[in-house]
């Protein structure tokens, strides 16, 4: 006799529904990316998704797990999708394949699959690519309105799969903006120029830095912000991590900016530059690898915000969301342990670390 146990009713949310919401909410940001940087983004997403699903299916089979139900929980798809949004639009296809399959196999399944991984898979894949192929991974196109040679769909396809344009144009010539220079991202540009001894006031006259935080990028960030807010109000993600992350970023950058506004970027630049909003609402909020307590989520977010600004300012890489997320992933077990909420009927929060059970 097998009796089922209460509760006998449940609300209809499911993991795959949550994952679909996440994917859906990236659309505004994705449209902005496509508008400013061409169809390469879409092609990357397709390559990444196919790679993720094939890798996931293969490894599930190897691990003798049910393939179909887990494949369609959508988590592999989200990993692929987020990684594809983070990489440059014309990245050679095989790099995307390496990044995604590494993320699925080594960052996720080696730890025991969904729910057991310590590090954010998309960011592990991203960092692997960033350290292995630094040149390709920091080569972005100029935003559409600055480009001399806008990239068509066929161009993008050709660059990604062959390395040269549809009409045999080299990728370097495509990367030249209106002022005749190869285009870096605004963050990268600022970093290079600052190291050349320029002052911020001078750098900000460059075309790539117009607007809040550089042409195109502010719209991409606004897009991700809009989608992220939808997730937040749908309660797909908690509000603490994005709030903490943005607050940490503003606070840290404000301290630097106030000390020397000629040398350090303003909080508003940081907020809308690079992968800030994608990171705050879509990457740092990966529930598996983030802290799970309300207070822990605050600290987790704050940490990412602060570390991101520090690496962007003093580190060797122009953007730092990925590093900051991975660094804070390491602190999660400890954060969770020391930030337990007060249970009903208990007096004050006890320092559980002192208990002799350890």
């Amino acid at each position: 006799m097998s009796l089922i146990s209460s509760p006998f009713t449940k609300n209809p949310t499911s993991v795959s529904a949550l994952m679909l919401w996440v994917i859906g909410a990236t659309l505004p940001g994705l449209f902005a990316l496509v508008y400013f940087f061409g169809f390469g983004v879409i092609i990357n997403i397709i390559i990444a998704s196919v790679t993720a699903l094939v890798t996931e299916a293969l490894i599930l089979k190897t691990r003798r797990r049910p393939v179909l139900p887990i494949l369609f929980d959508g988590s592999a798809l989200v990993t692929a999708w987020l990684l594809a949004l983070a990489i440059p639009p014309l990245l050679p296809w095989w790099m995307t394949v390496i990044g995604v399959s590494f993320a699925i196999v080594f960052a996720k399944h080696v730890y025991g699959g969904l729910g057991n991984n310590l590090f954010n898979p998309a960011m592990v894949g991203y960092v692997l690519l960033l350290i292995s192929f630094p040149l390709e991974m920091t080569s972005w196109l100029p935003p559409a309105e600055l480009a001399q040679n806008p990239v068509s769909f066929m161009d993008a396809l050709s660059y990604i799969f062959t390395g040269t344009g549809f009409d045999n144009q080299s990728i370097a010539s495509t990367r030249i903006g209106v002022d005749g220079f190869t285009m870096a991202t605004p963050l990268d540009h600022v970093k290079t120029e600052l190291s050349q001894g320029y002052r911020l006031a001078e750098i900000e006259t460059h075309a790539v830095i117009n607007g809040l935080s550089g042409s195109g990028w502010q719209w991409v960030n606004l897009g991700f912000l809009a989608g992220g807010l939808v997730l937040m109000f749908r309660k797909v993600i908690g509000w603490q991590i994005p709030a903490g992350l943005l607050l940490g970023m503003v606070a840290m950058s404000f301290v630097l900016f106030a000390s020397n506004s000629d040398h350090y970027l303003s909080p508003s630049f940081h907020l809308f530059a690079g992968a800030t909003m994608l990171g705050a609402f879509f990457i740092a909020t990966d529930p598996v690898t983030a802290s799970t307590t309300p207070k822990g989520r605050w600290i987790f977010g704050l940490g990412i915000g602060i570390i991101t600004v520090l690496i962007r300012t003093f580190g060797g890489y122009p953007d730092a969301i990925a590093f900051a997320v991975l660094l804070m992933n390491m602190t999660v077990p400890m954060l969770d342990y020391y930030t337990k909420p007060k249970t009903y009927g208990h007096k004050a929060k006890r320092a559980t670390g002192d208990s002799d059970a350890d």
Partner: protein
Amino acid sequence: MERSNYKSEIPIFEFPGGIHPKEHKVESNQTPIRDIPLPKQLVINLKGQAGNRSLPVVNVGDTVLKGQVIAESDGIFSTHQHAPSSGTVVAIEKRPIAHPSGLDDVCVVIETDGKDQWCDLSPKPNTHNLQRAEILAHICESGIVGLGGASFPTHIKLKRESGIHTLIINAAECEPYITCDDRLLQEHALEVLKGAQIISQLYQDLTIIIGIEDNKPDAIDALVSARKELGLDGAKIAVIPTKYPSGGEKQLIQLITGKEVPHGGLPADLGLVMHNVATCFAIFEAFEYGKPLVSRVVTLTGEACQKAGNYQVPFGTPVEHLMKISEASNPGVLVMGGPMMGFELPNSKVGIVKATNCIIMAAPKELKHDHLALPCIRCGACMDACPASLLPQQLYWHAKSDEFEKAEEYDLFDCIECGACAYVCPSDIPLVQYYRYAKSTIRNQKVEKTKADKARLRHEARQERLERVKREKAEKHRKAAEARRKAAEAAGDDDTKKSAVAAALARVKAKKAEQDEDSATGSSNETENQETDNKGNDA
């Protein structure tokens, strides 16, 4: 669903978490409470209350009248059981019972004679003339237990007098499907309040607060007019927002007082005592008419039943009889209690007990069945839903990997098993099942540990005694040897003849001393042997 516009008469606080499942109340709360035709047999479970099983005082073949005591309370933590109808006792044996364990237990089976004839009742309508002890004794003898679901003997809950200042009547009825308290209030609010008045006599200056969810507008109206009729202006109606589990004792206290029952404590520690509406009604009937608790209002509902509604059901009525009455056909699953905290019945032959507030006769797909649980993604939806502010995701993690100490550190035992976490879990993990498993394993381990500790103490005591005996023996031999040596020395001084006599004397003396000591230690040797035997038996 319709919400009451009635404004709460006291400020309402909040409790964290909670969920809003589909209410499913209108299916059963539109019709008045109906009586049922008597079943042929009543199967009365003797463990119909929390605490000790009642002791049967009838034999097979006895004729019993309705309300007659058929089982007496076994010690203080128990109550009487009464015949729910007149008839003949045909069996006292183990039967399947309405209990989550699904195990059989002792039941008294009564074949009804259809007359439903009451025994002599002793009403005590003038409760003002009664002493505190008399009131408590009458409540105990009337077999009254908490009818909200836990079946805790009411007289025990009422025992503590000092420091109690507020009586909270729990009319929240937050579980979906269940409407028995709602209907009872709509039809008998006056009697319920009178019952509460009897309770208030047990204390000095007791404030009465009725906690009720705003999805019961008719019941609230009934309460307001009943209160007016009684002139019971001191009683306040606390209208709380509909949110599960607002009717949990700890949650209702938090809603009404803003305070938390301390960990390991009781509501009485905050000066509160809480009783369910149906319990108040039962107390009223026990004093006004002298009727012991022999039946209760039960909600029969679920998509499989055609005539859903509330019925006055004698205890021991088999569920299959209720299925016939409510015209239920092929239910997929039978649940006693609500869908959040109820349990599946082993079969339809079990009898209704005092805790049965609802039977859900669900259509095959109406209630959840087992399906594949996906991995936990630590989304924290469970944490947001937990009314006890626990971290269900961490509890699950530790319970699953048998790390019980960790689970206890995460306050596993503060979990009230309300099921809100499992309700919201996107991975469909049966979280509550893991917590029940961890709790029962920890409880068993503690029992085992106490046993092991006792055995260890016994073993250590035995080792010590053996050591002592060994020491005493060695000492005894040393003394004897010394005596012999002294005797030999004395002999050496005198001439040979004299010495030979002395030596013989000394030997006799030494031997005597030895014998004396032997008889002294002999008894302890015996007990030792006995214990070794006992040990052998234990093993």
